[in-house]
């Protein structure tokens, strides 16, 4: 016992002694740079070479467009290139790329082998350092040029940014045609860049709020068939669909759990709506809230432990968070004179996106999961329905411009600096971003 005391005293003295030992001094000049100049990285995407120049050019164009839309890259105009024909098997002439201010260069080659398979190779070069950053090759079905282009875009994006990619994804949305009072709403799916769109439903019934499963190519949505509107799940590849649960009354605002095994949604009863969760395998349902208010738009945290939702239990629509098993909820949003709705937890877990209504304006914003650090990304006449890219760095939403006859889907990054229209043939709303394809 006493011995232990001596030892501990010794240890303490030892600490004191070591803290007094001379420290290594260094004489170099230290500088802290805490400001910068947000600027997209100038990148050159050389036209891919290969036996089929048309396919090759198409692929480089898709990559160019993707990288540009990310806002992180600024593709350099091909006309400025000094080295016109880049030899894919050799290092590029770095000086000539440096001369046009390129910081990175993408080169590639596309060839078809005897069996008709497409072989695509690419390299990403760091011009300033004069070295290759990454390179890869893919052998795929000839019909998959778009996907290969998206995958290459993702590799370039993630190599430079350190974040996961998001180009090889799709978006389900509601395609709107017809006049305002005789609207036809059809579920459609497209590539993340707006290309390759096709319909999933035929327009015979009204569909809203599609939500992608985070683990599969399935979509949950609400459709107004005969009788009460119901939540359905559809496989976007097979187009098979089924109704979720067998509830008396209207179910709406569905969303998958992070593991894709459960669907959480609202069930209306009288003037109140409460949140329920259904296990897709066992079909067991659990009630999570019990109020006379309207609790809706539930969204799981990526670890599945919490659910964020909107409720007017305090008088106005605000955002609350509770345990995934229900119980006491904590209010997160406190914006003055503002109503908050459609909270969506980022797949990365670092933000919750929401729609905010204030002073007649609709904004899309993000906040930290503890309710702090609110940041408005866009605000205007009507913006609604945020959905996260799988890397948690971009959001899509839909926007009605004042006086416009319909809405369009837009994409914005979490800094609010980068905003792009997602081109669709018709009016579009309610986007739902898929996970990365496999």
């Amino acid at each position, binding site marked *: 016992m006493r011995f232990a005391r001596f030892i501990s005293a010794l240890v303490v003295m030892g600490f004191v002694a070591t803290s007094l030992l001379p420290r290594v001094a260094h004489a170099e*000049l230290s*500088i802290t*740079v*805490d400001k910068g*100049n947000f600027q997209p990285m100038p990148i050159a995407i050389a036209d891919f070479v290969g036996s089929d120049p048309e396919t090759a050019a198409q692929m480089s164009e898709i990559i160019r467009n993707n990288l540009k839309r990310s806002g992180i890259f600024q593709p350099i105009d091909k006309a400025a290139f000094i080295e016109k024909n880049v030899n894919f098997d050799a290092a590029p002439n770095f000086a000539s790329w440096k001369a046009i201010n390129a910081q990175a260069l993408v080169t590639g080659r596309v060839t078809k082998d005897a069996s008709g398979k497409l072989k695509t190779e690419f390299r990403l070069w760091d011009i*300033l350092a004069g070295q290759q950053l990454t390179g890869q090759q893919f052998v795929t079905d000839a019909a998959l040029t778009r996907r290969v282009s998206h995958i290459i875009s993702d590799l370039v994006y993630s190599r*430079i940014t350190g974040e996961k990619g998001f180009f090889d994804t799709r978006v389900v949305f509601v395609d709107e045609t017809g006049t305002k009072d005789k609207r036809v709403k059809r579920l459609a799916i497209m590539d993340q860049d707006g290309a390759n769109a096709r319909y999933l439903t035929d327009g015979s019934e009204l569909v809203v709020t599609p939500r992608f499963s985070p683990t599969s190519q399935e979509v949950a949505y609400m459709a107004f068939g005969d009788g009460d509107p119901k939540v359905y799940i559809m496989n976007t590849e097979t187009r098979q669909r089924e109704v979720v649960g067998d509830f008396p009354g209207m179910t709406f605002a569905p969303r998958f759990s992070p593991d894709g095994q459960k669907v959480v949604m609202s069930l209306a009863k009288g003037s109140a709506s409460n949140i329920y969760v259904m296990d897709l395998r066992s079909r067991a349902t659990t009630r999570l809230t019990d109020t006379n208010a309207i609790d809706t738009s539930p969204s799981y945290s990526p670890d599945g432990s919490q659910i964020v939702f909107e409720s007017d239990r305090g008088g106005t629509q605000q955002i609350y968070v509770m345990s995934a098993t229900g119980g006491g909820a904590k209010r997160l949003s406190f914006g003055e004179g503002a109503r908050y709705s459609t909270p969506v937890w980022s797949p990365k877990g670092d933000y919750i996106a929401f729609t905010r209504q204030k002073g007649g304006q609709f904004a899309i914003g993000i906040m930290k999961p503890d309710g702090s650090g609110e940041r408005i990304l866009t605000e205007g006449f009507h913006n609604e329905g945020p959905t996260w890219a799988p890397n948690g760095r971009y959001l899509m939403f839909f926007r009605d411009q004042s006086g416009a006859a319909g809405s369009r889907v837009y994409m914005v990054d979490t800094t609010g600096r980068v905003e792009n229209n997602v081109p669709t043939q018709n009016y579009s709303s309610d986007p739902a971003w898929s996970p990365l394809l496999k």
Partner: protein
Amino acid sequence: MKINWSEPGVPLSAVIHAALLLATLIAFTTAPNFEEQPESIAVDMITTDELTALTKGDKTAKTVKPDAKIKVDKLSDQPVPKPESGEAKKDIPTPAAKPPEPLPEQKPEPPKPEVPTPPPPPQPAKPEVKPQPAPEEPKPDGLKQAPPPKPEPPKPQPPKFEADQLAKLLDQQKKAQPPKPAEAAKKTEPNFDPNALEKLLQSKETPQKMASTGTELSKTSTAGSATGTASKLTLSQRDQLSGLLRDQITKCWSPPAWVTGADNLRPIIRIGLREDGSLDGLPVAVDSSSDPSMKAMEESAIRAIRQCAPFNIPPQFKSYYADWKSLAVTFDMKAML
């Protein structure tokens, strides 16, 4: 005294205390080095530029020349290598610390072809002569632009000194206070007159030692140590220079705003600079990380530095090269988020 081993308290305490005392004695025998710090500035309030000029020039000079140069006569041959870069600086000795230096330095002089002076070169090779009146004229300025100040007149004199000059001086003295003929005769021969020497010593011309005490060099500063503190950047100069560099890097840095947890990522990039401000070697991240977010931060920082190089270093900092040849640049995005 008997030691009761079942109750080891007191003896054990004594032993451990003794051991501890011994240990601390050893631990403290090596006094902790003072952290290297910029030299404190004298109480006299002078501007940075004045100080720079002062440390470069002759400390006994009455006025501070804006473009003061080192006063090192023996460097007359050096103007050619000097502009080349750091080499010249390394070669230059600081005589204050090592007076015997003149010898080697002088050897190169005789062959000097450009300077028209050298009629007497062979003679000056004698070391004893040197420390005397010496060629004061060939001050720094004169050295650089050889023609303007004509160093001829003084130069021929010193060599003659041994015989003729001393005689002359003595003659002068004679005239001033006519000595007794007998004494005069005596004096001319033994040629050692303390008064004359004294006069020489009191001559207005600064002894050569002083002429080169202006230490412009960091490599061979006063004590000849590679890290001598003689020409350290002052605190304000340090601030000024780091501010200049920071501004340049800031313009080139496109911070990766998208990076996860960016507010906690603060990569430090170590860079070496050449005297012309260009990069010496590759910028390296200290504690380079494999975490993709940190890597993206580091790479953006390295791109910024590469993009910015060569850095623009104003001429007044050139002489402190040792102080800025290596930089540690911390990149911090927290304030921007």
